[in-house]
């Protein structure tokens, strides 16, 4: 919560004004019953009509003042809350943008999205409500009690009793029903999960004729949900009439007791009416605060989650005065005794990479091969500084990459990830992602090499075709080709291919690689691959096994010396291919 207060600071003036307005509004609401009592006591009973008109006019003015204050307060409150939400969102977004992969993994993307959107929206609406209820309700409650005491001390016990009953009722509901109420969401999730599994496995379910089994599974989830719902709904069905009953009985009791006291001349008749009004105001105030205590914990959770993001520092620090590459950039990449383990794991036992050393030269291809989990992609991510190495160092042209500025480093690297991801916009806006000033010719050329030109041209809107979020309106192969084209437009001297051809059919793959070869013949290329046929002819193949290099050399060399490589090769290639 304290973090949220920090963000409220710029809006202090607004919030203070809103508070003052709230006080005015509350005073207005509290003033009315008094005037009404006077109308009865001094107007109706003695038959003083001018006093009735006069008090009426005053009440009208007070009502008007009250609504004006409320509207102004609503305006200020809404502006302040929207402002706080706006600033919070911007702060969270900027923070996440510069997280390293370590922080991204810690939070998970879906959670970060919720934190940036829903959590903050939750804070925004709670802020306005809290402002209103936590200031307005206590004033009404306390003011109401004082004014009620002024009218009659002896009847206050009725209000106290009513409040105690209500608080007791709410407490019982909180204890009995809330846990079940919270369970409902989990049960809905479960129902959703089973339905989703049924949908995604529709072929399997039919192939194995397990419809009956699935129905049973669904029925279990459905029944659990229905039973919990029945309990909660019935509890709520009981709750509202109970509150109504307490309020109604309070009214009846006040009038009855009031009448007895009035006939003993201990209280004026008008005061009974005023007391009744105050009583209802007090009860409402308590209910408001009770409701806030139901809403507030949710907002607190949101605030806590936002704070967590804001207080997480990026584990990557870029130098204040970074080194720059000399003008004659070559692009020699060197890994020197690099080891790496994830931040939340301990050294040695959990090292993802151990003592990795190799040099990748401009104009050549360095391939990295190994089974899943061997650490291939991690090597590329370290070079991109998504993480920092935990041992050794990585150099480009002899400069430790940790001495470079962020832009300086990433300007030199073309990264084509395993999972192609496009951004919403058009094909053109995606290809222009790295360099907005790229010429038409460069774009066409890149698309041509990436074998994307043909399918782009087949689209009615060509380069202006719409790209949906994440590129979901393109096939896997098309996305991959566009993501390669995007890298080619960037035209940086170092290429990192992370299994970037996996979604292409063999023919396209071959054509693409032939074209790519001509384009990148002077660049440094690092290729991560699963298939030996893809990298058989690389200048240097690094074989990874469990985070260690078990072999490094050309295909022919490795076939003689490296057991792991031979094993992989044997599994993928036929005899004749191997011996070719």
């Amino acid at each position, binding site marked *: 919560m304290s973090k949220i207060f920090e963000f409220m600071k710029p809006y202090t003036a607004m919030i203070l004004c809103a508070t003052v307005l709230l006080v005015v509004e509350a005073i207005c609401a509290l003033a009315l019953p008094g005037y009404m009592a006077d109308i009865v006591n001094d107007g109706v009973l003695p038959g003083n009509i001018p006093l009735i008109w006069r008090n009426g006019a005053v009440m009208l003015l007070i009502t008007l003042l009250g609504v004006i204050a409320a509207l102004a307060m609503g305006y200020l409150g809404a502006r302040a809350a929207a402002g706080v939400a706006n600033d919070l969102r911007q702060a969270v977004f900027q923070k996440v943008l510069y997280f390293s992969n370590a922080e991204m993994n810690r939070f998970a993307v879906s959670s970060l999205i919720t934190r940036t959107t829903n959590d903050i929206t939750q804070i925004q609406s709670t802020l306005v409500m809290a402002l209103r209820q936590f200031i307005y309700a206590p004033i009404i409650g306390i003011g109401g009690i004082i004014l009620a005491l002024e009218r009659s001390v002896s009847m206050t016990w009725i209000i106290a009793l009513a409040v105690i009953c209500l608080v007791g009722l709410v407490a019982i509901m909180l204890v009995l029903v809330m846990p079940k109420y919270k369970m409902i969401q989990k049960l809905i999730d479960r129902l959703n999960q089973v339905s989703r599994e049924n949908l995604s496995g529709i072929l399997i379910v039919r192939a194995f004729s397990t419809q009956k089994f699935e129905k049973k599974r669904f029925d279990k989830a459905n029944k659990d949900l229905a039973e919990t719902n029945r309990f909660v709904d019935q509890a709520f069905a009981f709750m509202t009439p109970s509150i109504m009953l307490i309020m109604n009985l309070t009214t009846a009791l006040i009038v009855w007791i009031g009448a007895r006291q009035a006939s003993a001349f201990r209280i004026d008749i008008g005061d009974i009416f005023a007391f009744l009004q105050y009583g209802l105001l007090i009860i409402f105030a308590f209910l408001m605060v009770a409701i806030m205590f139901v809403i507030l914990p949710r907002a607190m959770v949101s605030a806590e989650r936002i704070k967590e993001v804001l207080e997480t520092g990026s584990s990557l620090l870029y130098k204040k005065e970074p080194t720059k590459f000399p003008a004659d950039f070559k692009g020699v990449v060197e890994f020197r005794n690099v080891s790496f383990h994830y931040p939340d794991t301990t050294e040695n036992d959990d090292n993802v990479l151990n003592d990795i050393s190799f040099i990748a030269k401009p104009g050549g291809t360095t391939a990295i091969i190994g089974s899943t989990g061997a650490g291939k992609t991690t090597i590329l991510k370290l070079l991109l500084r998504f993480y920092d190495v935990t041992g050794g160092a990585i150099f480009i042209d002899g400069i430790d990459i940790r001495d470079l500025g962020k832009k300086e480093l990433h300007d030199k690297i073309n990264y084509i990830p395993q999972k192609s991801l496009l951004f919403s916009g058009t094909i053109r806006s995606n290809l222009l992602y790295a360099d907005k000033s790229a010429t038409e010719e460069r774009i066409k050329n890149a698309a041509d090499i990436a074998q994307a030109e043909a399918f782009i041209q087949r689209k009615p809107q060509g380069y202006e075709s719409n790209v949906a979020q994440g590129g979901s309106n393109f096939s896997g192969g098309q996305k991959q080709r566009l993501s390669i084209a995007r890298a080619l437009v960037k035209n940086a001297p170092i290429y990192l291919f992370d299994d970037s051809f996996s979604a292409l059919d063999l023919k396209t793959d071959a054509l693409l690689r032939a074209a790519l070869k001509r384009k990148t013949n002077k660049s440094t290329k690092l290729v991560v691959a699963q*298939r030996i046929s893809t990298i058989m002819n690389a200048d240097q193949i690094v074989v990874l096994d469990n985070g260690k290099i078990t072999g490094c050399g050309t295909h022919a060399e490795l076939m003689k010396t490296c057991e792991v490589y031979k094993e992989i090769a044997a599994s993928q290639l036929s005899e004749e291919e191997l011996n070719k």
Partner: protein
Amino acid sequence: MSQQSSEQNNSYDPMDEINIGMQGLAQKAKDPKKTIKKLMDYLSPHKTALITALFFAMFSTVFSVIGPRLLGRVTTALVDGMLAFWFGTGLLTNFPYMAKITGWLIALYIVSSICSAAQGIIMARLSVKVTYKLRTEISEKMHKLPINYYDTRSHGEILSRVTNDVDTMSQTLNQNLTQLVSSVTTLVGVLAMMIWISPLMTAVAVLVIPLSMLVMMAVLKRSYVYFSEQQKVLGELSGIVEETYSGRDIVCAYNGETDAEERFAKANKKLRSCAWKAQFMTSIVEPIFSFVGNLGYVIVCVLGGYLAVRRVITIGDVQAFIQYIQIFTQPLGELGATSNMMQSTIAAAERVFEFLEEEEEVKDTEKSMRKKQCKGRVSFQNVRFGYQPDKIILRDFSAEIAPGQTVAIVGPTGAGKTTVVKLLMRFYELNAGKILIDDIDATNFTRGDLRSIFGMVLQDTWLYNATIMENIRYGSPNATDEEVIAAAKTAHCHNFIRTLPGGYNMVLNEEATNISQGQKQLFTIARVVLKNPAILILDEATSSIDTRTEILIQKAMKNIMQGRTSFVIAHRLSTIRDADLILVMKDGNIMEQGNHQQLLEAQGFYADLYNSQFTEGVVTEELNS
């Protein structure tokens, strides 16, 4: 409540939560009349309960409406007594009378609350019952729809009918329906009471209130506009956030941070400007309501006071009138909200009924040619098929497959290689021609019997939220643990399973992170081993599986293919070359068929494809030299 769930929710969709905020905004149904009729039919078995609840709701309201009038009587008795005392014309107060009235009053309030609670409980039970039934029907329907229904719809769309739409319906049943009755009753009852007390005051009050209601309507309308606007911008912003966060590697590697910041800031600013307006509109609804209430209150106080002095009405009636005027504004607001809710409910019901009324699969044959021992002979006779009737992709396909033979289906990505498989298992109906299994037309089996002949392993593995043991047992519920383990051994996953935490009892979730795609495929192979089918359908792995697991998969597949007719969607050259029959597919159609040698000699598409495989080596060489 949506908060806690979202993170456990695997296929997270931020729009889900945004939609929750949208529920207040009504959606329009296409044909409300028809839907309402269907809804009525649907509720007719619960007619008695429904009518009872509605009567309870009405009673409860009527009783509570009478309350203030009785309370007023007490006050009047009191004032009359005091006045009488002052003027010396009577007793101070008529206590027995007051006690009697107060007693009645308390009884009335209690009965009213009991009625209201009874109504609530009946409706809660009813709505839970109806919800449960609707969901069961939807779930059953899911298994009866033809596969092609799912080709054109997203899972999210169907899922939202199971949860959101049914929820909306249940809410309306639970609250809004009786709310409607009690709102109308309150409105009529209070109005009647007010007229009874004083037609003049009622006239004034009724004149003031609709005026304020008009202001109210204008505010609500505006707020609707701002809210939809806010939801729209929020959706936009969520889109930016989602793609930036999930594509952060790219953003970072391409120095796209500034660009992303600018895009976000722009959307954020836009959101701010409509967020405060929406927020403002929400926060003024209550003050305006209470203003209307207070306005009525003041008018009644003044006018009532004046009339009381003139002895036109009693003071107790003024007091009652004050209470009535406060109640009077309530049902008006509720009716507005309820009508909004009703609209979304009808729209939701329409979607649910639409789904329940979708055309189902062609009925199974009555007399199934169930076979104990299937040899595995398959023949396609002049098969004609298209996913859409006007787009025929298989024109006239015939082939004979002898028991134990292997058929390889090859072709570029997107060529429709799974079509043949889907037809074999009768996921789709043929447009013409026949498929015979052991010389019996496939349509002479029930689907269940037909499919029991096949075992299928797809690349897109499907496992469900249960233990590994149960996942392997899927489809053979009577298998013992020993049989499951034996199957796992044949499928080469026994050793690996043993190293997992919990072994065979490890629960798989959708994101089972410590289990690779390849290992999942081994589970599905074990599943097929256990089922022991006569004919196999296999989908060979492409590239995303690591080599060691792939070796295991190959061995496992070879194990189970022995002696069985097999259809393999093939990527590996060796499989293709060894196949007895190769079906070469392109654009959904079978271009060529024959064995490897025949097809190479034909110099057609297959030869092209095959050669590109070899030129690849040449190209790679060129690339790296």
